[in-house]
């Protein structure tokens, strides 16, 4: 990406020294860093417009409400939703998925049916379905191919008329694999099932168009896309939100309350009980504007270049295995790897001494670890503020690990 040096300057944390070394942050799949524009938007909100939303006629209240609803419009625009009514603000992708579990599937569970997820999912797209499963709905998992994609043939065979939901991650947080969600959408819909996309690893990194994907639900987190913690998004088609039961109950999600009875609010507010994370929405708004200004297609291109470089450098390392597609066009900028004979925690600890932040462990995907036949992995993941130099530092770091352990 042209001007990446200038862009790095927008991220104050990247000036930090870790153990005397410059920070090389390669853990963006866990959470992203924040540009000054986002930090400032939050600060400005608290210093100038902070108030409770929705029910106020005073000036600050109006400004806060406008800022909050404006963020909803910005997000709707980002993923090309039909209307901002289809955007529900939640805490994170995990809550978005739980909302669908509780409000859409739980009421159906006692009468059976089936949910299909995959073995490459993050725990957040597995455990909620086990909960629904415990209420009577079947749960099955599609396997992966040897190319680390979802086995569409097998998936097709699994989906049947009784399938209520097919769900998959758009991009894997371990393998990097970008799944063919348009095809999976078709398989689901051809069988009368709804389709949920876990977009936690895609919306931050590439253009995502819910109308093109034709998904029924899509969930993602603000903190992985330059935004603040504590704010996430559930997109859902209007018709579903209209017919779904509320999730949480309380202030703001109601129209009228008597001791006997409650009329719920219109969508999307029906799903937002209590005072929302207004400053979180304001920060997310700034983050989306920042991403849009660069351009999501440009970000994707930058990450392809970065991934290609990383794959190439990793392939030269002896005794280091990687997991995931080897084609940079088919994966996000996520490299999971293992150094022979060295536990991933030791890899990450030793890299940390060089100022390089990577993740180690099961990456919230224990079933996938099992499927890959490993206990844990080390993972490096890049974003807009990373460049080839960061990858080179990583490779140097891995070489040091190997030397330390005599591998």
């Amino acid at each position, binding site marked *: 990406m042209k001007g990446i040096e200038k862009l790095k300057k927008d991220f104050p944390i990247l000036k930090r020294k870790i153990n005397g070394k410059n920070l090389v942050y390669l853990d963006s799949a866990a959470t992203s860093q924040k540009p000054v524009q986002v930090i400032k938007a939050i600060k400005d909100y608290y210093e100038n417009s902070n108030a409770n939303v929705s029910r106020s006629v005073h000036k600050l209240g109006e400004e806060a409400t406008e800022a909050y609803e404006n963020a909803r419009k910005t997000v709707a625009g980002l993923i090309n939703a039909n209307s901002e009514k289809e955007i529900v603000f939640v805490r994170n992708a995990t809550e978005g998925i739980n909302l669908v579990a509780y409000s859409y599937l739980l009421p159906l569970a006692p009468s059976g049916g089936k949910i299909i997820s995959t073995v490459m999912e993050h725990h957040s797209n597995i455990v909620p379905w086990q909960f629904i499963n415990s209420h009577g709905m079947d749960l099955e998992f599609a396997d992966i191919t040897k190319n680390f994609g979802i086995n569409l043939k097998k998936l097709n065979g699994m989906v049947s008329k009784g399938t209520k939901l097919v769900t998959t991650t758009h991009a894997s947080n371990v393998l990097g694999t970008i799944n063919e969600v348009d095809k999976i959408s078709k398989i689901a819909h051809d069988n009368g099932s709804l389709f949920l996309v876990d977009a936690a690893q895609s919306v931050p990194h590439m253009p995502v168009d819910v109308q093109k994907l034709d998904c029924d639900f899509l969930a993602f987190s603000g903190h992985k896309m330059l935004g603040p913690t504590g704010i996430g998004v559930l997109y859902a088609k209007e018709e579903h939100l209209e017919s779904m039961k509320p999730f949480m109950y309380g202030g703001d999600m109601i129209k009228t309350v008597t001791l006997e009875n409650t009329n719920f609010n219109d969508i999307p507010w029906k799903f937002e009980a209590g005072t929302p994370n207004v400053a979180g929405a304001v920060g997310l708004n700034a983050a989306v504007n920042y991403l849009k200004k660069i351009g999501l297609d440009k970000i994707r291109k930058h990450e392809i270049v970065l991934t290609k470089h990383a794959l190439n450098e990793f392939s030269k390392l002896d005794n280091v295995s990687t997991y995931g597609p080897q084609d940079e066009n088919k994966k996000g900028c996520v490299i999971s790897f293992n150094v022979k004979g060295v*536990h*991933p925690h030791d890899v990450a*600890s030793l890299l940390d001494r060089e100022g390089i932040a990577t993740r180690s*462990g*099961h990456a919230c995907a224990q079933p996938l670890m099992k499927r890959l036949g490993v206990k844990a992995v080390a993972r490096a993941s890049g974003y807009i503020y990373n460049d080839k130099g960061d990858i080179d530092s990583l490779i140097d770091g891995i070489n040091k690990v190997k030397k330390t*352990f005599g591998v």
Partner: protein
Amino acid sequence: MLDMYAEEILERYKDPVNRGEIKNATAEVHETNPLCGDSVDIYLKIENGKISEAKFNGFGCAISQASADLLLDEIRGKSSKDAKSLAKEQFLKTLGISLSPARLKCALLSWYALMIALQDR
């Protein structure tokens, strides 16, 4: 304090002196840290209240495996009562490794296993 990856630790990890099984162990405990997949099995032979033999098997990071190896050196030959009274803090001091909070769990895995093994002794 030793560096986490001091020569001594790495040696213990690569060439542990107490690795192995005891066939007719009088106490045997399997302990894991599910968060990282680390595991240790501790085998003890306790005769007349004394730990006469101690071995471990396991999988995990350098810290978890090296500290298991060191722990068994520490307790072999002691009475089970003395071994049981080995406080967490005391063991960490003996280890003498400078540990970050996230890695404490690794270092203490074998100690937890030992305490379970000695519970009713």
